[in-house]
């Protein structure tokens, strides 16, 4: 089971972060955000912060999966987990990049 987790956790964390950012964007563009007295600038800040945190988490997972403590004893699984960890990292950087580059709530 731990090997299955090694394979599946990073990419699952990506989809969780992706959904979280998409949801956050929805909240920021809704009346709730303005109702709470927050500005769009702060909204952008929150989105970028989430993005950076998600990237940091992916890097940490990748390092952990290569460390002696958490790596799989099975070399094939370790390699698969590393590939998928890289996929998750790239996906996090790329799919959430619009938080920094696209207009908000238009």
């Amino acid at each position, binding site marked *: 089971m731990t*090997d299955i987790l090694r*394979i599946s956790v990073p990419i699952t964390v990506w989809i969780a972060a*992706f959904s979280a950012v998409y949801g956050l964007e929805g909240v920021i563009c809704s009346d709730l955000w303005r109702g709470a007295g927050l500005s769009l600038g702060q909204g952008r800040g929150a989105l970028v912060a989430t993005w950076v945190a998600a990237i940091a988490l992916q890097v940490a997972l990748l390092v952990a999966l290569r460390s002696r403590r958490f790596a799989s004893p*099975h070399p*094939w699984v370790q*390699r698969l987990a590393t590939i998928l960890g890289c996929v998750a990292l790239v996906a996090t950087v*790329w*799919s959430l990049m619009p938080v920094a580059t696209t207009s908000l709530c238009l």
Partner: protein
Amino acid sequence: MTEKKRMTALRLHKALYPIWRNDPGWKGVLTTVNNNTIGNMFILGATGMFLAGGILAMLIRAQLASPRSAFMGPEIYNQIFTMHGTIMMFLFAIPFFEALTVFLLPGMLGTRDLAFPRLSSYGFWCYMIGSTIMIVALVAGVAPDGGWFMYPPLSSSAYSSGINTDIWLLGISFIEISAIGAAVEVVVTVLRYRAVGMSLDKLPIFAWYMLVVAVMILTAFPPMILGSLILELERAFDMPFFQAEHGGDSLLWQHLFWLFGHPEVYIIFLPAAGVISMVLPVMARTTLLGYGWVVAAAISLAVLSFGLWVHHMFTTGIPHMGLAFFSAVSTLVAVPTGVQIFAWIGTLWKGRPEMHLPMLWILGFFVTFVMGGLTGVMVAMVPFDWQAHDSYFVVAHLHYVLIGGYVFPMIAGIYYWMPVLTGRKRFFRMGETAFWLVMVGFHGTFLLLHWAGLLGMRRRIDTVEAGSGWESINLLASISGFVLAIGFGLVILDVAVNAFVAVRGPRNPWKAGTLEWATPIPGPSYNVASIPVISSRYPLHDNPDLPVQIARGEGFLAWPDRNRRETLAVSISRGEPEFISVFPKNTIVPFVMAVVTSVMFMAPVFKWYWLMFIAAAGVTVLALVWAWANGSRRDEGLLDAGRGVSLPPHTEVAYKPGWWGSLFLLLADSVLFGSLLFGYAFLWTVAPNWPPPRILQPGILGPVLALAGVALASSGIRLGDRAIREDGAPWRGLLASLAGLAALGAAAATVFAGTTYNAHAYDATLWVIAGYVIFHAGLAGLMVLFLLCRIGTGYVSARRFGDARVVRLWIDYAVLTAALGLGAAWLPGVLP
């Protein structure tokens, strides 16, 4: 084989056969739990649905052939295209690969059956009964007519008042049971039931693909099941989830539907890719290039596809940033798709391809799928989609992907595995003619229809207007469509004729390396006479003698001395023997339960709620009977598994197969719950007419009950579990957890008391959340009672505490979701 060896193999067969065989005659059809028999019936059923969907397609093409040929009015036409889409997607595409998997997987993995044989039977019968109901509805003229994705408000009771829509919502949800059941089964089988030594890197690639697909089914279907459920609640009880005046939002349906619908495309494509990855290397007389990369690509594709659902909603006015996220993921999925295609091309390159019939179909796949991929990239561009959306361009694209990317590879697979399925060697050569008819017919139909779409022909229109400029295209497309249909018909005829009259063929005619070719053909009911020991991905290539050794009983669990159905469960990563799994005997319970379940789902169509409750009680009783039959009243200790190894039976391990099955079923359940919370948050932030006029105040009683419930339920079962293992008295702990579950249910009931179910989407959502909590608390409570009875009748001991672990899992789940759900329900009331 020498004479002596043959004698041993024959004796072993004679020992195994009576234990594993089906009941004789018609009774056997209903009571069988054997994967070969069920797989065969399942393949036949799904082929029947392909024919039904195909006939509807022909009616569509006949209607649209020219302005003069129109023979049905819009009411009928709407039913026809809706049912064509529904049948093809839900009753053909998904069931067909499930059927193939049920049939092939145990053989490939070198084991004796799927993990939960009765579940195979239950899933199959749910599928057959559900499909029959849909076809009857179609013939009776009350078939669904809202398009296969059923958008409200069109599908709300205001615009679709008949029972048509209810039949779709309840019928499809019912059929989904078979998909979820098959998925649980595939996951547990691939993870735990394999040949010895088959570590994760030695799985046949098809098993990896199906593992990924099964997890996708478990995570993609629940949102749609939830959507169908709440749409049905809206239709039946006016709970306004999708009505803007009362705080609902029809976009919620689109989200829930496409959360399922986009991954669905990959759920259909990945099994086809799995078939190609098995067949192509054999046709090229080599092995798959880049196995590890292909596995990584399949997993990435599966997860990435969940980040894509909104691309079906580009035209619904979502903010730019939202669109940009999904465009970004759309570009990402191209990478793993590319990796797979390059692995296939590389495999062809390094091998020496031979042009057998399966190979021909794979080449047909390549050509068609690449073209479909190109138009897919086009519609994934947001500005282009605004143009092509809802036109025949999309219809053409989707058939390139579905027929080219799914149907062709499946036909390749059927021809490839025909010896395993039927034991015969292809003799009549209609197949080649059929292939060319299909190719010409397919491109003739759908290449042209792209054009019609670009000229502005909208999809789902019931006549081609004279003078629209699309007439000649449609006429040609219709003629080609009939050629295509004749081609598919010939394929089916070819397979059928060969299955019945061709001569018996040799074992492993393609010289493949995987284990499904190691059994006599067609496979005996026990699949393998002994569980093989392997050391590579292509065991038959390293050891051509393996089939003989298996048949002679040189693997594990050969001689059935204990006179029951046994197979081996192995460790997940390394495939080392762990315990002996004892399978159920033939039984009619799954069939009866499927019948009663169908009543439970169909009664609400006619608003016979009393009947629904009776049927639900029936299902519960049957489920208890089902669960009861499993287990043992004495400790057996370590048993001889052959080859000098002793292992415990599954009743004496902490986490028995039922625990694993529950774990993955709860994965699906948790996605359903997550979608419910998503819907709640979505409505709150996006829907008009929020916040609701009246917000629930939690008060004191509800939260106190909830806290007490959480504490009692989870600590009680733990105390009980410990007492069982120490031979103490578990009663106290178990009764405490029962009380805790009751308290949780009562806490949820206070939500009912504080809201009016149809006042506002907010109230309606809280009712569903509270209902969910009560349902799970009740279910867990029933399990505790069941466990108490098991203890009372001697099925549980200090060694046999697996039942308690299963119950603990369900209680933990009920507690966790109750805490989250009730917390979410009460949160707005305590915020300032």
